[in-house]
């Protein structure tokens, strides 16, 4: 070990790395538990990469082979059903913790100067994660996936020619076919990771550079200390990762992800079709809008509103520019709470209706 260390030390500046690790700290205060969500997300991402790679060994994209390969996986391959279920449950938990991460940062104004770019990068990572979920949903090529993808790729058409172009680009034609499946597969395993991982690297780099933010009230009163990351924070992180691992495996073992029925273009749309829970906050308001608002289609108005709200959330640090001086206007302080209430209410309503 000593010889290996000496060999590495002659090539890499190990002392500098060790000095950095020794000096890395995390703020320690009464809301420190919020900091663990980022680590949990990285852990879940690792689970997704590992299980996704294992699934690739058996999955075969194609109109005539995708569903069959899933059936083969869950009925013939040892552990296949569990690996697939861990991948599906892991994806759901990842999105759950992503929203928790986003809302916690919004509440303690972690986006404030000088961390605007970290927020913007993180928001793009959220969009990409949702795109992972959407593209991955079609891959088993079952009836539910086909219908949900049809609804999802229909939605942009409400935005006129640009939306139609985007819909055709996603589908590879007017309808959802094997071409769509190939495109979604390419996106899921290659296109999206190509964008996701460099962005994640930048996000993590910025966090290392600036450290994590302390809630403004606690920072003003200096009611916090700094805790070493290695090993004090890391041990805490590892404990939570173990629990999350147990949770994912338990869900996969007790509630294996269903296979469904093979996609059939002629089959009627399944009743009460709705998207995955993490799209309900977008899907539910679409149902509430009237068919026509001042001569414009209600769906178009809803889509434009969704895009505007998304854009505002993306650029939120530039809207709340006074946050670093504690000069956030009252209505902006109220906004994160309203966003959380809206998200939870719409998701619950969509889920139960």
């Amino acid at each position, binding site marked *: 070990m000593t010889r290996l260390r000496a060999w590495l030390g002659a090539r890499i500046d190990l002392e500098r790395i060790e000095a950095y690790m020794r*000096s890395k*700290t995390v*703020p*320690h*205060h*009464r809301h420190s538990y919020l900091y663990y969500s980022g680590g949990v997300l990285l852990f879940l991402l690792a689970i997704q990469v590992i299980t996704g790679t*294992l699934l690739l*060994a*058996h999955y*075969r994209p194609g109109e005539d*082979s995708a*569903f*069959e*390969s899933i*059936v*083969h996986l*869950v*009925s*013939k*391959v*040892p*552990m*296949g*059903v569990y*690996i697939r279920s861990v991948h599906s449950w892991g994806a759901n938990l990842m999105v759950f913790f992503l929203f928790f991460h986003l809302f916690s940062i919004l509440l303690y104004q972690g986006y*404030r*100067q*000088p961390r605007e770019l970290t927020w913007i990068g993180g928001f793009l990572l959220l969009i990409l994660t949702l795109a992972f979920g959407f593209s991955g949903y079609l891959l088993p090529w079952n009836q539910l996936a086909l219908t949900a993808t049809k609804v999802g790729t229909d939605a942009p058409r409400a935005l006129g020619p640009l939306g139609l172009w985007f819909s055709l680009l996603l589908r590879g034609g007017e309808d959802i076919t094997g071409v769509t499946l190939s495109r979604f597969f390419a996106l899921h395993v290659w296109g999206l990771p190509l964008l996701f991982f460099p962005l994640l690297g930048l996000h993590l780099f910025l966090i290392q550079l*600036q*450290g994590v933010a302390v809630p403004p009230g606690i*920072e003003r009163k*200096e009611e*916090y*200390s*700094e*805790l*070493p990351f290695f*090993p*004090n924070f890391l*041990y*805490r992180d*590892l*404990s939570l990762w*173990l*629990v999350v*691992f*147990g949770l994912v*495996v*338990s869900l996969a*073992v*007790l509630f*294996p992800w269903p*296979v469904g*029925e*093979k996609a*059939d273009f002629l089959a009627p749309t399944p009743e009460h079709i709705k998207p995955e829970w993490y799209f309900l906050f977008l899907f539910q308001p679409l149902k509430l809008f009237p068919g026509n608002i001042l001569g414009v289609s209600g769906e178009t108005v809803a889509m434009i509103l969704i895009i505007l709200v998304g854009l505002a959330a993306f650029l939120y640090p530039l809207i709340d520019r006074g946050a*670093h*001086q504690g000069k956030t206007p009252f209505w902006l302080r109220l906004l994160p709470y309203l966003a959380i209430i809206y998200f939870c209410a719409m998701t619950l309503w969509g889920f139960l209706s």
Partner: protein
Amino acid sequence: MSVWAWFLSLMTPAVTFAATPEAPLPLLLDPLPDRLLFLVILWVFIIALVIVLRWKVSLADALFRMMPLNQRGSRKKVKVGESNRDSIPGPPGRD
């Protein structure tokens, strides 16, 4: 049933067979008692590891508290409106 079984399965050629939508699709699941037993063993293992990690956390925190303040002062953080400044008041007495 192990991860090795999965890796060995990579060597078996993928078999294409016609799925019959009418028939319930078979999931290669172990019987429920076996699965529950697996989960019990898994959680006992996880809880044991978490207990060990908690003990390590307490130990690491205690060592940190014993460290002279001037040594802890080498840790720096970014504070809004200031360049890096030396920290730190002592850590609170809770995790």
